[in-house]
């Protein structure tokens, strides 16, 4: 199903939660609404569900305006952050609820619920009550329940927020596989960018009631279009003036930039080409299991990079070379990705 939002505005009291939000899901299947808390993403999701009504703007499902369609009739499945399982009903009855509303026969209901129990790995738990389940189990019941009535659109509100870190990773993979198997258009809300990047086909970044950028995870990561997106994704360090950096001087004075550690190489003397690498002094070295996180003082700036686990360890105070492959130049509203021109020139030869 294709979801379009046109100029959605919503205010709560004096707080403008959404200030003219528009997007088009295209034919993407798994869309992540990503952004900091309070940015408006849950509000947007609830408006899509019909649980809130926008002050202005239109919502279209497959080209059809659904503003006046009540949630009962929108054919959506919604998974709440706190699952909202019916606490006095068994797992079976919870999942069967939507089917009961649709007045399906008992045999049909039984068949579908058993299919979903199987699909979500909940077999054997049919008779349990919600308070007898773990967080991960509750989440899967909520998911099965939302899917049971065969909705056309699935909406998930921070589905993994309440789950332990280790279980979260497993569930993420499971969810993505499940959604692809069932084949349903899904929009989920999260503030965890690692999650959005891993799970979604398309990410929409929402902050302070506006859409900052919409694109594939790679797009958003490599080509942020606003300063907010540049600083929100991954770890970022800021440089006040890049004209002092080798390979970027041609751009002129006074440009600010955001630098990602992924695009920074740190090496001992001789490991990196001196023409395009800066010299700096190591400030801090942290072993993270998967790599070394190294912070280097380059002139006035503090720049971070990663070093492979089995490389020669660095020590604070050591002199090193820092190669910046690319950075994101930012001003008030815009962001542009720039490659290290010296490096480009060097490789062209």
């Amino acid at each position, binding site marked *: 199903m294709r979801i379009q939002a046109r100029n959605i505005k919503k205010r709560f009291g004096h707080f403008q939660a959404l200030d003219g939000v528009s997007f088009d899901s295209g034919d993407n299947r798994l869309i992540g609404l990503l952004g900091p808390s309070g940015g408006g993403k849950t509000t947007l999701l609830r408006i899509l569900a*019909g*649980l809130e*009504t926008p002050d202005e703007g239109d919502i279209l499902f497959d080209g059809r305006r659904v503003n006046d369609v*009540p*949630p009962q009739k929108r054919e959506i499945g919604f998974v709440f952050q706190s699952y909202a399982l019916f606490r006095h009903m068994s797992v079976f009855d919870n999942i069967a609820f939507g089917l009961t509303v649709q007045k399906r026969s008992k045999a049909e209901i039984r068949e579908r619920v058993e299919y979903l129990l199987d699909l979500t790995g909940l077999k054997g738990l049919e008779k349990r009550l919600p308070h007898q389940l773990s967080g991960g189990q509750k989440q899967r019941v909520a998911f099965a329940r939302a899917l049971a009535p065969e909705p056309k659109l699935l909406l998930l509100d921070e589905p993994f927020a309440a789950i332990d870190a280790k279980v979260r990773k497993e569930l993420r993979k499971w969810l993505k596989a499940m959604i692809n198997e069932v084949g349903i258009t899904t929009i989920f809300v999260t503030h965890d960018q690692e999650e959005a990047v891993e799970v979604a086909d398309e990410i929409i970044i929402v902050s302070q009631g506006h859409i900052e950028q919409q694109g594939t995870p790679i797009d958003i990561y490599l080509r942020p279009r606003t300063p907010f997106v540049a600083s929100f994704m991954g770890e970022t360090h800021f440089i006040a003036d890049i004209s002092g950096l080798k390979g970027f001087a041609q751009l002129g004075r006074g440009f600010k930039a955001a630098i990602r550690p992924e695009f920074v190489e740190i090496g001992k003397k001789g490991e990196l080409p001196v023409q395009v690498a800066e010299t700096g002094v190591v400030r801090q070295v942290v072993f993270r299991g998967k790599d070394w996180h190294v912070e280097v003082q380059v002139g006035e700036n503090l720049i971070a990079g990663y070093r492979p686990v089995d490389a020669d360890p660095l020590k604070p105070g050591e002199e090193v070379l820092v190669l910046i492959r690319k950075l994101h130049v930012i001003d008030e509203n815009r962001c542009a990705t720039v490659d290290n021109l010296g490096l480009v020139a060097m490789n062209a030869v």
Partner: protein
Amino acid sequence: MKQFKQRSILPGFGLTMGFTLLYLGLIVLIPLSTVILKAAGSTWQEFLATVTAARVIASFRVSLLTSLAAALINVVFGFIVAWVLVRYTFPGKRLIDGLIDLPFALPTAVAGIALTSIYSQNGWIGRLFDPLGVKIAFTPLGIVIALVFIGLPFVVRTVQPVLQELQSDVEEAAVLMGAKRRLIFRKVLFPELLPALITGFALAFSRAIGEYGSVVFISGNMPMRTEIVPLLIMTKLEQFDYVGATAIALVMLLISFLLLLVINLLQWRTHRRLTAE
């Protein structure tokens, strides 16, 4: 456009709100308004004359003073009861805990005759004090005892939840810093409990001044001495002095509503303090 209510997807607002307002109006608001309208029927002078008659003022004095005394007694002992129920273990605790609500569940007339029986001259307790020349029933003292009975659950049930919610880590921090038990109580625990005590006091007081059934038997209803305001209203009604009864009722209502506002404000403030933390 400022909306009266946010459009919600849950149904039934119109129906339930409509019935609520209708029922509220019919059973509560319209009947209550009769007092104001009837009182408005007499002139200001008539009203003042009625309300400042010696007997009326005496009845207010009796009602207010006995209620005050009873509420204070309840604050002290109710606090001890709540403390003991929350913090200590002893046999029969659950039974006592359940009994606290007795004044709330027991009809006031039953309480009234039982208390009169106990405290009259040859009652179980009355006869202990009679040789000392102390009469309890048919004196303001008897009224106070009846009002203590009525008000007890209000203090205990207001303080109990607050006591229960108190985290022990604050106490532990004080202990580790060397504070003695008395100091901890005074500086750490009591300030937390004070709002609840004040609220409980206000509730007990408010209930006491309007109390009729449990007091009317034990007080003896002697005008100027043990006649409480509700009884005075009743007497005036029996004499068909509607104007007089209404005037006094209006003053009572004003006092009650004032207390209600104060109580609501107190509870709102405590709730805000606790949830902001």
